């Protein structure tokens, strides 16, 4: 039943994304228009996929670091991706894929660094160190990024700054296909870890007593969630709050078990980001807002509400 509602809402959101836009198309021309097929549809689908990936990555990482206020970008990935992207812009790397690839490499580099830090305590990943290491690596990367931006020329600076806030203006069917080919593996790893993730909420030792192989679980979930986030940031920039707020909303509505939480977080994250992107490209048309600004404006009040609820209970 919940999936019928969610899939219905997803289709409605995608339909709305096709209908509205700065080029005011008459309804009759809609299905023949290249604007719809080559611009609006791939863009809406990509936003949906990225939102879904961020929702799933956020839900899994919150269970992994056992901190309900964790966000996929908290683990240093946004900093690394931002650094890679801004470096690509500053170095004038050519080609349409230079920027996403540089961002992806930056994110994976940050991930590797944080992972290494998380292993410092011994053979097992320590989630607390993952969190602290993520914040530290992210802050370092942000400092280098800001240094690069401050040395850049004005137009480059604007591009870099806008990229950091996220957006889907570069979306194409090729990008959609790349994500469709890439995402199933990490998504599959996370879905297969759904039940052990339920157990991990009890603590590492209790989870082991209920049958979870905690060491492999932590490694698999960290790598899969980070690789999902890295791909999302590479194609869309840093889009905050989707990975933080969506899992909480889904937990409130459909419960905390990951067998339900992960699929509902995927659909809800997709709906939210597709809707936010539609807003981002229409409210200030013909100009575009970075979609990260829309999600932050929507997400911060929700987050504040959740935080209050959390501290009260």
């Amino acid at each position, binding site marked *: 039943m919940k999936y019928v509602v969610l899939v219905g809402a997803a289709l409605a959101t995608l339909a709305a994304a096709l209908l509205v836009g700065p080029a005011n198309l008459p309804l009759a021309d809609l299905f023949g228009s290249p604007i719809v097929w080559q611009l609006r549809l791939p863009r809406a689908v990509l936003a949906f996929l990225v939102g879904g990936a961020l929702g799933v990555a956020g839900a899994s990482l919150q269970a992994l670091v056992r901190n309900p206020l964790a966000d996929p970008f908290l683990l240093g990935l946004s900093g690394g991706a931002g650094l890679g992207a801004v470096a690509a812009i500053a170095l004038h790397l050519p080609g349409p894929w230079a920027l996403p690839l540089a961002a992806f490499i930056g994110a994976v580099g940050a991930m590797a660094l944080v992972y290494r830090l998380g292993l410092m305590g011994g053979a097992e990943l320590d989630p607390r160190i993952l969190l602290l290491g993520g914040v530290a690596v992210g802050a370092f990367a942000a400092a280098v990024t800001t240094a690069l931006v401050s040395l850049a020329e004005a137009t480059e600076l604007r591009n870099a700054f806008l990229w950091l806030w996220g957006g889907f203006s570069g979306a194409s069917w090729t990008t959609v296909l790349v994500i469709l080919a890439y995402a199933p593996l990490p998504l599959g790893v996370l879905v297969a870890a759904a039940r052990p993730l339920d157990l991990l*909420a*009890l*603590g590492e030792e209790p989870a082991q007593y209920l049958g979870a192989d905690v060491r492999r679980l932590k490694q698999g979930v960290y790598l899969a969630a980070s690789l999902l986030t890295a791909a999302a940031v590479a194609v869309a920039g840093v889009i905050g709050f989707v990975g933080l707020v969506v899992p909480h909303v889904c937990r409130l509505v459909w419960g905390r078990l990951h067998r339900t939480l992960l699929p509902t977080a995927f659909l809800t994250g997709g709906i939210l980001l597709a809707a936010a992107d539609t807003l981002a490209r229409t409210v200030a048309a013909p100009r575009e807002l970075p979609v990260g600004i829309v999600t932050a404006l929507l997400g911060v009040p929700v987050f504040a509400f959740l935080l209050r609820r959390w501290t009260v209970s």
Partner: protein
Amino acid sequence: MDRELILALRGVTCRYPDAPRDSLVGVSLEVRAGEFHAVLGPNGSGKTTLVRAALGLVGPVAGRAEILGRPAGGWSRRELARVVGVLPQREDNLFPQRVRETVSLGRYPHLSLLGGMGAADRAAVERALVACDVTDLADRWLWTLSGGEYQRVRLARALAQEPKLLVLDEPTASLDLRHEMQLFELVRALVDAHGLGALMITHHVNLATRFADQVLILADGRAVARGTPADVLTRETADRVFAWPVSIVPFEGRPQMIPLRQRKEAP
């Protein structure tokens, strides 16, 4: 009657990395089906290490720890969770949860990767709820329970695993008298009715000697005494282990320990 040997420790010695000394030294223990074992000893005497070694979380540097004849470290966590149910001393409740959901977690080691809870799994959950007398609480949120109810729910979760052995690490710490007695009675009843083995770490010497079949006393990682309560709890042993003068008096055939006042000599 020869009861099934579930857990066997044979001269187990354990040492944590970088620790200055062994946490456990040459400890032996055998838990069979239908036996209730209590482990006593002061803080830091190695009780929790004993449990970790028995469950394969800490590898012994000498000796062997075996469950159903296989080395404890050779079981996968999932296989072991179908045979041994554990109540660890502490656990978190990161996200809000209802009682029936919590007890259902005990079925996880029995579920396949993609399959859901079947009729047999649901029946096992209901049986566990009934056995621990928490059926009425099934739809309550965990945070609304009293300490005693919460421990019974956790015991129900362990029972839902359908184990042969229950391991309980100080399950009655911070419970009041009534809930503490209820929990000891419950564990005793489960051992007698279902033929489970039970291994309980506790600080309650007098309840341990009244409910358990066998008692193991640890001090500084060594087994000071092992056997029936009457054999183990003597004044000499208790004085030494607990570093306090005591008197031992019998009650219903079991020894009970009374700590003595320290007499102050008048000047």
